[in-house]
């Protein structure tokens, strides 16, 4: 960490000194999450979600490993093995429901974490790598979740696999061979199931590695804060431990309470009844839908219904992947020197509309592909792409922003009506 006032690690206990001399892990922990990592003092609740996402990853890995001790990755035995877990394995129902609802928990906290980034300009210089690594984590999460959902081999598992692997076939020229290669056959079958199991077990560890890079990249400039103003003096920061360990701790307690509510009292609320029916390649469910966290992307996929040079299906696929890939370019699309949405009133309005827009996309994604949901998806898709690719670039050139506070401390002291200077002015007389 590069703040000069960061406390140096001075181990008191002789064992810790011994350890640190030989393998500087204690030092590493101290400097990244301990008293040696200064963090802006004004972080709000939205800054808690990164840690929650890390917690969610740990929950998924631990429950996943124990579930894998009982799961059978065969087309004839997978569904039955999941029922074996639910009925015969000691507390198996708890492990299964925690893993299934844990995935939803992981996505909720990650989405809030991403929306925090979008609102507060966390993706802007010098944190572009943090942002892009985060997007890589998001893509890996989606791949992992998709493959994980196939494993119980229920109706939605199978038909979801059928639909999504079928999308690869839409790629011109190389699409069909890629699809066949991915599936290992002509339709999702044994080969698909075993390879999805292997990759589903592997990817979370890849995610863990990228998370380490993500945090490392963050710790170079240090955390952002709600004002978007850089840290200037020691008064702007507090050490991570105990201030943010305590804050993250109680907030995690509250989040786990909500997760427990789901796991113990509403374990199938976010799921789909059809996945309690064994996969039948000869019978398509009435409405194939993915899990709720994929619904916005599913809506974008289905919004393109008319051929235009390219077939509609291909447009849908390009738009669906494009909707995430464009986020990689956000630091260069939105060039406003003001980071935080708190000081960008026009931006704020468009941002709130984006939130509503994504909620609408999510809702439509869960509906059958009928009117009026398709038209609604189309309108919402138009706004989504317009927001990132047209509105933000233009806005960042012409918007009027509010004056920023001189420092974090000042903004904490005075609140919104800080004795602020317009951007770039010298700070007021020293206090």
């Amino acid at each position, binding site marked *: 960490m590069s703040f000069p006032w960061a406390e140096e690690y001075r181990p008191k206990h002789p064992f810790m000194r011994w350890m640190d001399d030989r393998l500087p892990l204690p030092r590493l922990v101290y400097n990244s999450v301990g008293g040696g990592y200064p963090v802006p003092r004004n972080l709000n609740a939205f800054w808690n979600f990164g840690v929650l996402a890390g917690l969610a990853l740990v929950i998924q890995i631990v429950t996943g490993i124990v579930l894998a001790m009982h799961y059978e990755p065969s087309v004839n035995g997978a569904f039955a093995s999941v029922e*074996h877990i639910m009925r015969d394995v000691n507390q198996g129902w708890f492990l299964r429901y925690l893993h299934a609802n844990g995935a939803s928990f992981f996505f909720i906290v990650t989405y809030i974490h991403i929306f925090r980034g979008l609102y507060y300009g966390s993706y802007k210089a010098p944190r572009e790598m943090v942002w892009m690594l985060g997007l890589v984590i998001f893509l890996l999460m989606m791949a992992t979740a998709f493959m994980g959902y196939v494993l119980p081999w229920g109706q939605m598992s199978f038909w979801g696999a059928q639909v999504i692997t079928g999308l690869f076939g839409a790629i011109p020229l190389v699409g069909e061979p890629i699809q066949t290669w991915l599936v290992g056959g002509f339709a999702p079958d044994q080969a698909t199931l075993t390879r999805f199991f292997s990759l589903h077990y592997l990817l979370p560890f890849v995610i863990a590695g990228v998370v380490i890079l993500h945090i490392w990249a963050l710790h170079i400039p240090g955390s952002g804060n709600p004002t978007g103003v850089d840290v200037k003096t020691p008064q702007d920061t507090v050490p991570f431990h105990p201030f943010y360990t*305590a804050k993250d701790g109680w907030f995690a307690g509250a989040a786990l309470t909500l997760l427990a509510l789901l796991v113990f009292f509403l374990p199938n609320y976010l799921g789909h009844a059809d996945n309690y029916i064994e996969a039948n390649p000869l019978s398509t469910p009435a409405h194939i839908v993915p899990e709720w966290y994929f619904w916005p992307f599913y809506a974008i996929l289905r919004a393109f219904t008319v051929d235009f040079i390219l077939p509609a299906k291909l447009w849908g696929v390009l738009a669906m992947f494009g909707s995430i890939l464009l986020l990689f370019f956000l630091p260069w699309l939105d060039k406003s020197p003001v980071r935080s949405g708190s000081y960008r009133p026009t931006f704020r309005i468009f941002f709130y509309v984006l939130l509503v827009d994504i909620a609408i996309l999510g809702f439509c994604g869960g509906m059958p592909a009928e009117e009026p949901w398709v038209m609604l998806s189309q309108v919402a898709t138009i706004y989504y792409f317009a927001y990132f690719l047209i509105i933000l670039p233009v806005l960042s050139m012409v918007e009027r922003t509010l004056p920023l506070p001189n420092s974090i401390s000042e903004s904490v002291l005075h609140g919104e009506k800080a004795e602020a200077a317009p951007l770039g002015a010298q700070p007021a007389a020293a206090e």
Partner: protein
Amino acid sequence: MDGVRRRDFINIAAVSFAGVGGATLLYPLVNQMNPTADVLALAQIDVDISAIEAGQAIKTVWRKQPIFIRNLTPAEIQAANAVDAGSLRDPQSLAERTKEGHNNWLITLGVCTHLGCVPLGAAEGENRGEYGGYFCPCHGSHYDTAARIRKGPAPLNLEVPEYEFLTDTSVRIG
């Protein structure tokens, strides 16, 4: 600094309480590796022994391991009782290895106590070794008519599982 110390109690309390919760979570994570309900259900089997005549034995499976159920002939019983149990490597009398009133029924695991091979002798025509009981071909352990180790490297007699006679023709093992 007493004021500070007193107030830090809440921090210790919070961390300890959370720690207890974390430790409790460990229980299902560890317990899930214990035998599942369907495995435990097979921990007990009922075997119909009405078809086994004197001098015959059957092999069956209990808890995924072989079981030998033998109907001893009077000659075999006599041979077993003729030996001084105290002089054996694993001292046990035939009476100790059978149930009262059913001492012609010898029920043992079919697992050699040396290194775990399945001894011969239960099926028709198999080598029964020098003592007329069971013979393990892996390293040459000979068991007598009461399935006690007499010669060879095995340290113990063939294990007698927990069992009870439900009726004269039905045994519950386990």
